């Protein structure tokens, strides 16, 4: 892709609204076909510190069968908007304004009883966390039956029949039997399906989904999105989809509302927002996503700064403090209105003129040519992991007998060079975190060796480990749980120094240095963690990891809890630090786009094993392992047109239990290429051209000859007898990765 194209969003003039019109979702249309009419909704919360203006002046309308996506950074009021429509934000400290008409009921001013009548029946909601939103003590079927009977006068049998029907509709196999299960017997993805089934039980006119797939793996997310699409087609249900993932939006939405600091700053059809965005905040959002469908930029463009406080919002345009295009008009409050002649339904809140917007619409400040050279091989090894296994006993019954083992990590080998970044990806529960904790020696490996600079640390005692701890540090996923809430920042960042006997004055000085290094100011040293935002907390975590000048930092999902714009800031910081200090990273993540951006090489894990380990560009352009291909194909790309053209392969099923992994290839239960051989024989890690290493009997993107002479990888140990793999026939390649290549 040319430099010009990659720096501009889209670069295609508006006009292609094929998809939007097919759903009859032209926002300019009024009156006739409006299901929900939201006018000037305002939600204020009185708090100890002042009034939080969580939602302000939000207006939109929703047509039957339409999918409206609400996007924006964390705290922008997406959830409050959605929950207010359900009457779930009502509390003594909440003050509401405006109206939201559904038929002839105003959801904002309706009484509790009136609301209860429409909730579930007319307007249903599914939440982000499928683990906590089902009642653990009732059978699934019963919960759905209750939901139905709350609104309709039907007999138990009838209701149960309906319950089984909706369960079938959302793709629960053997729904009749499964209706008698308890929620804990379902996996996360299944529970989310149950939530959808429950929401759909009474055929509501509107479904509100608040981050319905955020807690799920990409392959499961693809299944759920497929399910939602099907439901929408079938029953003309309108969906309000709250999400921060623009890939998901591009996949399913008809219209988009972009929220910032409690207000909608831009609203338009899918194509309008993606290919002709009008508001600088939307440009920033679209620009800061790491993408798998584009060339990798040297640096991720980020929106500087962070969202404003909702207590003291900036005057006029709320985006002003972070906007690069601010000018004299901006201190006045811009209304949400059509500022484009040719697209009356496309509204935004920015004073810039349409031409100015189109000429200035550039993201990334021209840093894209600074692509880093990749370090691959040829560097001296810092960390050698060989045949590492981590098995946890499963105890059952009164006598606590060991009834089996969780094979959390099973025979993993790789090496990591100085200053190199190895990405580690895989679905939840595949053993990524266990592996990184084992490398940190927070766990002792069941088997195998871990060598740090040639020293075997696999079974070192904690006393011997203490001096070695200096060299390997960790940054954790949860920016809230990883900082002790009762300690000041100086104590948190200085703790590693203190434990290694650095004198007190020296600690103060070093702490200030470190805080400055990660982009915080030394004045923050005396504050407590709760005074910082997620991104800032993650910076503090990074400062703490840097305190002892380690040679390796294990980053366990360091940005997955952050907003895209903040993600970009943190990723850039990590890259700068690596460039400056030459520290190696083991970057664990489930987000393949971010991993691709930072990694030199990437290891793909499934059920405790490494499936493929390849240089990152190679992995994305030419995946060898069917699982890698499936993962890549499941990621929704933030590009609606490409999504429409892309042939997606939705891998069915879910990962099997790691207590009793399948024989042979562990992926065979979900693999579209699986054959008899895969059941009987564990595929060994073999080397393929381009630096690929993969464990598969029938690899993709590899010619027959290459398969035949695939070298045994030096990393592999399994001597599974060198049976020549069966011929790979071309028509047997069900995974089309062409669109990604």
């Amino acid at each position, binding site marked *: 892709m040319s430099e010009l194209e990659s720096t501009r969003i889209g670069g295609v003039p508006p006009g292609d609204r094929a998809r939007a019109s097919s759903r009859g979702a032209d926002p300019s249309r009024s009156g006739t076909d409006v299901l929900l009419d939201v006018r000037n909704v305002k939600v204020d919360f009185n708090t100890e510190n002042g009034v939080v203006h969580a939602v302000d002046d939000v207006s939109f309308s929703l047509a039957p069968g339409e999918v409206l996506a609400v996007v924006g950074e964390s705290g922008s009021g997406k959830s409050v908007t959605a929950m207010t429509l359900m009457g779930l934000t009502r509390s003594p400290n909440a003050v509401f304004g405006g109206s939201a008409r559904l038929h002839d009921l105003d959801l904002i001013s309706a009484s509790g009883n009136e609301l209860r009548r429409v909730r579930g029946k007319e307007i249903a909601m599914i939440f982000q966390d499928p683990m906590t939103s089902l009642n653990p003590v009732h059978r699934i079927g019963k919960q759905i039956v209750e939901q139905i009977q709350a609104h309709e006068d039907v007999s138990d049998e009838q209701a149960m029949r309906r319950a089984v029907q909706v369960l079938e509709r959302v793709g629960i196999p053997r729904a009749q039997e499964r209706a008698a299960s308890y929620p804990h017997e379902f996996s996360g993805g299944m529970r989310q399906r149950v939530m959808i089934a429950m929401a759909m039980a009474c055929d509501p006119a509107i479904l509100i989904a608040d981050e319905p797939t955020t807690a799920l793996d990409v392959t499961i997310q693809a299944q759920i999105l497929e399910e939602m699409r099907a439901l929408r087609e079938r029953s003309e249900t309108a969906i309000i989809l709250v999400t921060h993932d623009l890939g998901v939006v591009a996949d399913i939405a008809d219209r988009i509302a972009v929220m910032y600091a409690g207000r909608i700053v831009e609203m338009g059809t899918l194509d309008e927002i993606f290919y002709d965005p009008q508001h600088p905040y939307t440009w920033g959002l679209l620009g800061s996503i790491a993408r798998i469908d584009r060339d990798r930029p040297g640096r991720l463009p980020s929106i500087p700064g962070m969202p*404003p406080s909702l207590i003291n*919002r900036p005057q006029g345009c709320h985006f002003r403090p972070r906007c690069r295009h601010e000018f004299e008009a901006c201190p006045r409050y811009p209304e949400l209105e059509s500022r484009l002649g040719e697209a009356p339904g496309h509204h935004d809140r920015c004073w810039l003129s349409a031409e100015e917007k189109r000429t200035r619409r550039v993201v990334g400040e021209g840093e894209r040519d600074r692509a880093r050279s990749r370090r691959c091989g040829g560097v001296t090894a810092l960390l050698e992991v060989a045949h590492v296994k981590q098995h946890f006993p499963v105890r059952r019954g009164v006598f606590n007998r060991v009834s089996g083992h969780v094979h959390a990590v099973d025979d993993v080998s790789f090496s990591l060079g100085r200053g190199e970044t190895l990405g580690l990806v895989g679905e939840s529960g595949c053993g990524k975190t266990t592996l990184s904790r084992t490398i940190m020696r927070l766990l002792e490996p069941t088997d195998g060796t871990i060598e740090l600079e040639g020293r075997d640390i696999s079974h070192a005692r904690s006393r011997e480990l*203490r001096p070695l701890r200096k060299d390997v540090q960790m940054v954790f996923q949860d920016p809230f749980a990883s900082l002790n809430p009762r300690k000041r920042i100086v104590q948190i960042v200085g703790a590693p120094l203190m434990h290694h006997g650095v004198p007190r004055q020296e600690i103060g000085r070093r702490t200030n240095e470190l805080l400055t290094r990660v982009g915080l100011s030394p004045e923050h040293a005396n504050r407590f963690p709760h005074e910082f935002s997620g991104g800032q907390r993650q910076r503090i975590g990074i400062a703490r990891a840097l305190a002892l000048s380690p040679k390796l930092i294990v980053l366990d999902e360091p940005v997955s809890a952050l907003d895209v714009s903040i993600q970009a800031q943190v990723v850039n910081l990590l890259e700068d630090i690596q460039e400056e200090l030459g520290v190696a990273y083991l970057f664990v993540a489930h987000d393949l786009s971010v991993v691709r951006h930072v990694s030199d090489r990437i290891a793909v894990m499934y059920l405790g094993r490494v499936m493929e380990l390849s240089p990152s560009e190679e992995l994305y352009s030419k995946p060898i392992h069917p699982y890698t291909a499936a993962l890549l194909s499941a990621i929704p790309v933030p590009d609606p047109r490409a999504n429409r053209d892309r042939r997606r392969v939705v891998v069915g099923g879910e990962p099997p239990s790691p207590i009793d992994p399948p024989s042979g290839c562990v992926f065979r239960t979900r693999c579209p290429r699986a054959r008899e051989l895969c059941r009987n024989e564990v595929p060994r890690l073999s080397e393929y051209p381009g630096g690929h290493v993969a464990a598969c009997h029938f690899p993709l993107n590899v010619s027959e000859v290459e398969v035949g002479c695939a070298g045994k990888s030096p990393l592999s140990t399994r001597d599974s007898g060198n049976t020549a793999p069966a011929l790979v026939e071309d028509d047997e390649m069900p995974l089309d990765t062409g669109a990604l290549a």
Partner: protein
Amino acid sequence: MTTHQDPATALPAADPGEIEHAATGRTGAGPWHLAARRLRRNRVALPFGALFLLLVAIALLAPAFGESVAKTGPNTNHLSDTITVRGQERNVVELDGVPIGPQYLAAKGRYMLGADGNGRDVMVRLLYGARNSLFIGLTASLITTVLAVTVGLLAGYYRGPVDAVISRTLDSLWAFPPVLIGVALGVSLALGGLDLGLFQVRGNSLWIPTLIIGVVSVVYLARPIRGQVLSLREKEFVEAARAHGASDLQIMTRELLPNLVSTVLTFLPVLVANAILLEAALSFLGAGVQPPDPSWGTMLANGVNLLITSPHLTIAPGAMLVLTVLSLNVFGDGVRDALDPRSRVKIGT
């Protein structure tokens, strides 16, 4: 209701280093500051806290009151004495054994709350009793806190066998009614005293009920502490400390302990109240404070004999108990709400 005007306070340019966080007006305001601020705004808890402080102050003033107002000591008998009430001579204890009732201010401050069967001034004994009861309550709670935090930390942090031993011990303590243990221990110790080599405790020392109460209450605090440590030890910040080489002791004292303070503070008022009640119960049964020393429990025990003729003997210490326990409990609720910001209170606009 739609406002188009925004608050005039514009935000300064927010670069990543410039923190503007909505949650705190001030910078560096720690969790304690915030809790204290919330407590100070609590219009119910504060008066009750003040009431408890008042009780403590009164107890401290007991000797002064005895000397200059009542002109007697707590253990001084006045069986055959007389006093002048509004110019009239009266026996402190009638010949049939019925003591004089409350005089309030009529006898120039003497026998304000009447006399007991031995002619001792109830007011004076009540104040001295408050000293003993409060001393035992507070000290026992401190002992409980230290023991419970130690034991809870060890059990929660190490889990496994350490936890098993500690938890089973606590369970078996839990299985006995505390009063029963207290009585059993108290009676035997009160007879023989305690001989720990260096330490020798006389049978009538206040330390015996204090220690007993302190130990039997451990289970109430140790359980929640253990539970909290169990969940805290899984937090990533503990992992982080381990990752940079902190020892177990350092993790327990530097990382976990500060997080337990709010739990301890929440429990402390209730703990003190319970200790005072337990002291009263033990003393009532003769296993706590030993006669003739006064405490609310011993005074109640003395009073029941004369319940019909002289109800003031039981009402006075009973009322003190109720006041103390009530003030501690209400104040304790306030402390809990202040420490737990999620507690739902309406915030005035």
